[in-house]
């Protein structure tokens, strides 16, 4: 990541003689992921156009791999730079394979004939972006998330050195946003061909989580450029967006607090080859790494035999075993060291792959002293797990280290004490990408983890994002929110002009229970749920995570409540055999049981929601079907809508 891939020197750009950007200079390294943030109209798109070579700068120079961007031929440029702009051109009906093949344009001959080699690249790229299964599908019939993946595949098929994306997350819901950025991150980390990525992003939290560097674009100029943790500070953001400071403060403070929580859970888990139920691999925390390394060093020192494997039991009850990466022993000095490579499993966070080293020295005094060495942060502000001045090694990892050392001592008949110095290779640099400096931890990473195991994130990240959205809404002074599972709900809300009510609409995916808890903690007073019957009907059975992975129960619910409403055995059987909630509604309609069943279901949903809310806020729900329209609305829901000022016909 050291060689400069793109250099911008004193560049001014704009349209028709009016400059939008003035005298801008910066550079981007190979394999870096840079996110451009800034208010609307700050020139983000202009900058991307100039970097793509699609708009010539009015003055100044742009070098790509040392070559002047405006002097290289169109074809050469296309082989270096690929773009993915949200230019919504209606495409003719074409298969996704054909769409991705278009990316080979700069490499094919006069008539654009694709060779076998071209097709191999196309297939490889589609596999990488997880859209090979869509190859024969008509592009126009895909969901937005799928389209975006196909378009990304097309851009990568161009085999560029740099990929430029303008608001790639705009049309995507949470899940796809995270998936897309994760994919981009992996591409930028490719060992053989690291892809340099430059993108504009509206979502600050995503920039913070994914970008290597953030470029803040204010009025015609760069206001800050650097690692997210360094530049995305409250004063910088207040200035950039011109928002009231305390609002942003609340928002960012919430974000930081949540990050802190994450970290302790993140870093809590792990083991080399334990797969979770969802098929993702677990990893282990820095704390577990330190304990493993301490064990290896102590064993070497006490037995004189180079350890071949270390193994500790984590607080989560999962045993983690690893082979040492490196160890050494100096018997005369009574000191030994051992290094363990941290493996975060399928939750690659910033500390994944970091080398955690423990140096253990035998001491005459009894007891165990633990301290941090190079790359381990030191606490400079009160209120954290450790007192000011201590190494940022939290109490759980300290206990894990002590425990393994005590066991080693007992097994080897050693009665003296230990001094342990934990260090982390490149810890200081890696810490710059965490929130440590904001938390007052200086000079390196923290050794943390409460369970010792890292559970794969994806779901947690989703919940985090909901949390950020809800907190943001609360920080902006909202006391009411509307929660909806996804795009169907969002469309319904739009169609019925509920989005005009000035009540924030937050997507909660399947995490209804989590979203309600978050709302309670954020001090929200009124929550309205609006969602598709297929999802929300599950609430009647108190299923609070509606992902079908956890529970389905739709047909059981319909069958049960229809039975309570007096349905015949035949009707119940038919309901039980139908696949979708719309089919169930059809059946109930035929049997003239729809109204009674709906009433019972709605009443039960209201009761279950209130139980979860625990009196902390008012809650109501509205269920609809894409086919049948409104299915039902709870009494409380109707009240809330009226309070929100809704005057529509629902």
């Amino acid at each position, binding site marked *: 990541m050291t060689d400069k891939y793109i250099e911008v020197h004193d560049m001014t750009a704009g349209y028709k003689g009016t400059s939008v950007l003035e005298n801008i200079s910066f550079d981007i390294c190979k394999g870096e992921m840079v996110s451009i943030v800034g208010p609307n109209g700050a020139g983000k798109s202009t900058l991307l156009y100039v970097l793509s070579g699609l708009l010539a700068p009015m003055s100044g120079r742009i070098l790509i791999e040392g070559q002047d961007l405006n002097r290289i031929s169109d074809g050469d440029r296309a082989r270096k730079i*690929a773009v993915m*702009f949200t230019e919504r*051109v209606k495409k*003719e009906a074409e298969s996704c394979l054909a769409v991705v093949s*278009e990316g080979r344009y700069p490499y094919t001959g006069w008539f*654009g004939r694709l060779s076998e080699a071209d097709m191999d690249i196309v297939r490889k790229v589609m596999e990488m972006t997880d859209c090979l299964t869509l190859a*024969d599908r008509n592009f126009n019939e895909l969901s937005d998330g799928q389209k975006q993946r196909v378009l990304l595949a097309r851009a990568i098929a161009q085999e560029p050195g740099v990929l430029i994306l303008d608001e790639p997350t705009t049309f995507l819901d949470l899940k796809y946003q995270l998936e897309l950025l994760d994919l981009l991150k992996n591409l930028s980390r490719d060992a053989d061909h690291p892809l340099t990525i430059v993108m504009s992003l509206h979502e600050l939290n995503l920039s913070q989580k994914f970008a290597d560097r953030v470029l803040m674009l204010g009025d015609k100029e760069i206001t800050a450029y650097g690692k997210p943790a360094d530049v995305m500070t409250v004063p910088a953001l207040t200035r950039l967006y011109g928002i009231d400071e305390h609002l942003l403060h609340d928002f960012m403070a919430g974000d930081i607090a949540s990050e802190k929580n994450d970290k302790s859970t993140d870093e809590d888990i792990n083991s080399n080859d334990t797969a979770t139920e969802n098929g993702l691999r677990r990893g282990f925390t820095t704390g577990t790494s330190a304990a493993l390394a301490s064990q290896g060093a102590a064993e070497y020192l006490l037995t004189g035999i180079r350890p071949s494997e270390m193994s500790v039991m984590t607080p989560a009850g999962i045993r983690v075993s690893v082979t040492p990466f490196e160890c050494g022993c100096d018997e005369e000095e009574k000191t030994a060291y051992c290094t363990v490579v941290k493996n975060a499993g399928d939750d690659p966070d910033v500390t994944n792959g970091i080398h955690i080293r423990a140096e253990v020295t035998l001491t005459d005094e009894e007891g165990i002293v633990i301290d941090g060495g190079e790359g381990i942060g030191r606490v400079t502000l009160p209120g954290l797990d450790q007192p000011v001045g201590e190494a940022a090694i939290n109490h759980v990892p300290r206990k894990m280290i002590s425990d393994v050392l005590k066991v080693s001592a007992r097994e080897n008949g050693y009665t003296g004490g230990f001094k342990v110095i934990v260090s982390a290779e490149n810890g200081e640099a890696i810490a710059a990408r965490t929130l440590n400096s904001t938390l007052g931890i200086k000079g390196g990473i923290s050794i943390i983890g409460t369970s010792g195991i890292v559970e794969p994130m994806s779901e947690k990240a989703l919940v985090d994002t909901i949390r950020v959205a809800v907190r943001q809404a609360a920080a902006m002074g909202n006391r009411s929110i509307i929660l909806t599972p996804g795009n169907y709900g969002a469309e319904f809300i739009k169609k019925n002009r509920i989005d005009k009510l000035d009540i924030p609409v937050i997507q909660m995916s399947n995490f209804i229970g989590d979203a309600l808890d978050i709302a309670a903690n954020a001090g929200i007073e009124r929550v309205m749920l609006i969602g598709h019957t297929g999802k929300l009907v599950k609430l009647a059975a108190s299923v609070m995570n509606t992902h079908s992975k956890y529970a389905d129960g739709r047909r059981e619910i319909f069958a049960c409540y229809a039975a309570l409403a007096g349905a015949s055995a035949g009707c119940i059987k038919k309901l039980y055999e139908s696949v979708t909630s719309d089919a169930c509604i059809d059946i109930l309609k035929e049997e003239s049981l729809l109204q009674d069943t709906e009433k019972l279901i709605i009443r039960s949903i209201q009761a279950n929601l209130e139980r979860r809310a625990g009196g902390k806020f008012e809650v109501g729900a509205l269920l609809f079907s894409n086919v049948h329209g409104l299915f039902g609305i709870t009494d409380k829901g109707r009240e809330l809508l009226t309070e929100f000022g809704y005057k529509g016909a629902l």
Partner: protein
Amino acid sequence: MTSAEKRKITIVYCLLIVLMIFLFMLSISTGSVMVPFSRVASVLIKGTGDNDTVMIIKMIRLPRTVLALVSGGALALAGYLLQTFFRNPIAGPYVMGISSGARMMVAVMTIIVLSRGGGVSSIQMVVVSFAGALLSTVVILLLSTRIKSMSVLLVAGIMISYICTAVTDFIVNVAGDSSVVNMHGWSQGSFSGTSEQEAAFAAVFILIVSMIVWAVSKPIGAYRNGEVYAKSVGVNVRALQISIILLSSLLSGIVTAFAGPVSFVGIAVPFIVRKLMTDRRPVIMMPAVFLTGASYTMAADLAARMLLSPTELSLSTVTAFAGVPIVLIMLAGGRFERKC
């Protein structure tokens, strides 16, 4: 491309070629004197047959049929290019006033030259007609920088068409020369009275221009994804846009020079071909558009000659009969404002 797709494309192409040959033969064999296919073949291939038949075929029917064939292909291709350029399936040389512009210029020149007792050569006709087509296209382009709605732009094209027609009629009336009578048939679109030289000239010219069009099919394919995207994969968008405009004007200009304005071929044919083809890449589409346009126009010419024989209908009457319903189907299908 999967092998199933390849097979489908091959089958469509075989059918289009067979259809074209069939209509070509039928067009030559049909008329006031019916000539069986076998004799048509022997005249065309070996040049043998009785003198009358040879004369009818070689001097009258063959030139006319060849002109219908290449004109149809040219108009369909010009339509396809304009549709790609304006990203609207209803753009075409006739509705956008491009054919009328060409006709107006030809009319002006013919009257001027004839009134001085001169004669007009094919090449002069083509040059002037091309200039007229280009004139209308440039006006449309200038309007398109101000009018963003495609439907309004099409209405503007129709207005241009009316103005050009009015100018043409005015000139024809003022001139009052008896030779202008010939202009009447021509100005409604007709392939009758084509000479061997004219047909040969038009055929060579159109085939060359069509090959050039086909040769830029690759950048046109990228252009369909938007200007920004095309530029990003290395297309010189400005040069491509100019080429598309010049080539489509050239194609519609040549046809108008020899046959007058012919309606709706440019819209109806690409529409039909889009329905036939699953692979919409221009490199695949263009030859099919040409072949279909050729067949469509030969069939229309045949109908114009034969329906009320011995009276001849004007060609545009027939192409409109078949083309307008197709356009209406497109409109009803909600494809109007949708970009193609």
